[in-house]
């Protein structure tokens, strides 16, 4: 039995007086796929962003691949650890957030070159490999604004993968897409899961959760309302809240 690659302990997050995350723990094993679902405003995004410190947690600890950070610390060492965690955790956003002034290739090689100091030709070779993998090598020199939403999101996934992350965080990666474009992104995510990537995914794609997830968490009002394997949570949820929510979206 190996060690969890993500360890969260007693995580709290306040936005001013608003208590959004109310003390959650989570262990994620290597190669595990965890899907978080829940009603709007439950704190799913906030939780995910606390994992790579895009939001500074108010209390608790986060440990990713052996790098442990306590909340509410500061200083040079703290910042260095955050940088380290961010390199270990790739993130994909709902709004893609590609860099509009760079080509597809430029978007992907940017971080390896500036952060990892990877030689440019090596970065390009890797980027092309990744583009091939997401099926967009032919769009290599296109600007993001010329791509469809699904293509942009696939580039965003390739961009995150270019940093060789240990885990991948997805925050509703398909919510901004037209229905007919969702499939191509989900398909890439499935392949990623099959290749053994550890993933924490916030999504309302029940098919993905059912087919790919190892565990599904139902989050409500800042806590884990229910955590179970997908077959159990979708067919036989224990909690009334979960039942209601699923009835709503299915």
């Amino acid at each position, binding site marked *: 039995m190996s060690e969890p690659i993500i360890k969260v302990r007693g995580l709290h997050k306040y936005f001013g007086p608003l208590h959004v995350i109310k003390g959650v723990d989570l262990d994620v094993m290597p190669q595990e796929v965890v899907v978080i679902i829940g009603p709007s405003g439950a704190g799913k995004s906030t939780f995910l962003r606390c994992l790579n410190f895009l939001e500074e947690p108010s209390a608790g600890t986060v440990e990713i691949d052996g790098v442990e950070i306590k909340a509410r610390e500061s200083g040079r060492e703290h910042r260095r650890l955050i940088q380290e965690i961010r390199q270990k955790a790739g993130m994909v956003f709902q709004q893609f*957030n590609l860099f509009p002034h*760079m080509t597809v290739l430029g978007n992907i090689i940017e971080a390896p070159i500036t952060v990892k100091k990877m030689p440019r030709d090596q970065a390009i070779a890797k980027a092309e490999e990744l583009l091939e993998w997401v099926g967009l090598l032919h769009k290599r020199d296109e*600007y993001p604004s010329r791509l469809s939403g699904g293509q942009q999101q696939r580039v965003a996934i390739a961009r995150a993968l270019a*940093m060789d992350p240990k885990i991948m965080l997805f925050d509703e990666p398909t919510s901004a897409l037209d229905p007919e474009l969702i499939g191509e992104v989900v398909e890439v995510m499935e392949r990623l899961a099959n290749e053994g990537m550890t993933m924490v995914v916030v999504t309302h794609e029940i098919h993905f959760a059912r087919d790919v997830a190892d565990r599904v968490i139902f989050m409500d009002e800042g806590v884990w309302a229910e955590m179970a394997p997908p077959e159990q949570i979708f067919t036989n949820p224990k909690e009334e809240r979960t039942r209601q929510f699923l009835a709503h979206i299915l």
Partner: protein
Amino acid sequence: MSTLRSSTLHPGSRAMRLLCLLVALTAGLSLLYAVQYYLGSPLRLAVTSEIHDLALSPTHHLVAAAAQDGMVRLWDMDADWKMYTLTGHTGPVTSVAFDASGPTLFSAGSDGKVYLWDIPTILPAGPSNAQPVKALEASTSPLRDLSLTPDGSLLATLGDDHIIRVWDVETGEVIQTIGPNEHTRHAVALSPDGTLVAADDANHIQMWDAHSGEPRQRLEGQWENEEEQENWLGHEKEVTALAFSPDGAYLASGSAEGTTLIWDVEQGQLAWETKGHLGAVSEVAFDASGEYLISSGGDNMVRRWKVTGGKFAGLFKGHLGSVSGVAAGPDENTILSSGVDGSVRLWEVVNNQELHLEWTKLGLMPIWGKVFVIWMLGSGLLGLLLAWGLWRVRTWSYLGSLAMYTIGPLFAVVLPMLETIAYPITWSTRLHIAWPLACLFVWYYFLVLYLRNDAIAIPYQAPDAESLAQRLMAAQQTRNIRQGLFVLATWFLIFILLFSVLRRFGLDIAFMRKWLPFIMGGAGLTMFVSAMAILLATVLALVGALGRLAKNPVINGISGFYVSLIRGTPLLVQIFIWFLALPQIGITLKPVTAGILALGVNYGAYMTEIFRAGIQAIGIGQYEAAHALGMSSSQTFRRIVLPQAFRIVIPPIGNEFIAMMKDSALVSMITVQELTFRAQKLGRQNFRNLETFLIAAAFYWILTIVFQFFQSKLEAYMARGERR
């Protein structure tokens, strides 16, 4: 509609056939005019005949003028300026002179001949029946200049073959031939006693013994300071005019750079120097007493100088073109001048007033005759082509005709017509000169009106249209082009009107042409100051914007203070502070440095706000994406935020740059010798503020237009990632 297809072969409607006919007719008649003009037939626009030289008879009542049309004009001042025309030369007459006895009038022409006219037989014979009594001819090469001893015994001529010939008038024989020297091109002069002949040799003057042809003095000039080679006393450009003083002691020379020099003949040395003409000096002459020198120039001015000392003694302004000849007038208080505007003028020297004006012919300035015939030829040939195109129902021919008949007449017809307003003639004379132009203008006007007609326009817009959509699109396109054309024509018309009005009030084109290079010499500094200042401003703005966005209260406070202080005080005051106030606390800056600092710091403050807005316009998602990839804050800013912010601020920064270029004129206040400074200095010195500031304004305007063009190109380039 049903004949849409067949109309591609020939014009369908009667209106279109009429149009073809009208255009063809216009073109044909224009061509006819041009052909007969070049064949030398008499039908032509009324233009004056340029005068190349002028002479006053020893009896002081006859004025002779050498005219371009090959006729010598002779006016009898005693008989109310009655005019005689002496015909004989087969080309333009270039030079005239009287001898004291007789009197006899000598005229030299481009036909290589010198004619001698006996005045006592001409005057009774009536205005136009004069015959030369004698002709001298040595070669067929055109004659440039002629000089006569006062007694009429010796004659010297200079031809385009660069040969000086000295003639014994009595026998009609050439007694001496000097040259050829290819640097002798403009002027020859005989000393009053007939011993010396002088001629130009590039920027020097060579004198010979008139009888033996032996070289004598050579007048070259010298450095005032021999060692340093400073301050050349002499001519810099070629000598264009020569004249001996009545006693033969001095020789006056005029040159292409506009200076006139007075030389002591005996010593072979420069005696006095006069500077004033803005164009080449065309002729110099002494008055009868030898006390005053008169000179005429390519700057349309006549100037008078005191010989002793070379002091300025009067300016005579009125000629509409270069002044080609001057002579002392019938008494010591008058002078005579002639110009390429075809006029002879008598001036009063005490209050510089024009006493009398005569024209060789009443008409437009000769240049307009040439412009007009070129237009006739060009529009005739093009018009025939267009008429053919119109017959074949081609869109290009429709637009071509519209363009040609809208824009062309503005320059070939309207401009000369308005020009006549600047001429000192009566309205009835104006009408007399310009009526053919007016008629033509009305004709063109109706042609354009007819072309605008929908019945004409629509069939030409899309002759091969298969569908309504095509036809509608073509119609829209044609309307746009037509609209642009009329807008352009309106611009031209405004320019022409402005130009004519300014000329009416004496806009000095020669002055503008002469000093354009000097004023433009400041353009480099203007651009340099603007470029350096914008560079400084950009750096300051970037730092300032970062400061304004910083959380650190000290940094934030400093940049807020900077922006507030600079935006709250006038730029002019800031310029003075940099240049005039700082020395008081021990910091002395060069004017250019102070100017660049003042402009850069000032615009830096305004641009700080632009940069700040640009940076703030970048969404939080971009920061998050970069941070999630592990990029540090500074990497995110440099690689992600700044490039996008730059793209956003380019249009406003471009505007700032254009504004700064214009505001750079303010640094002229602190003696930076840029464009505006030069314009101001020159204008004040010469009382030509209109001319100098017109040049300056035109420069800024053109530069602004050019920059706006490049700015739009740059914006298009920077926006290449934006298109959806």
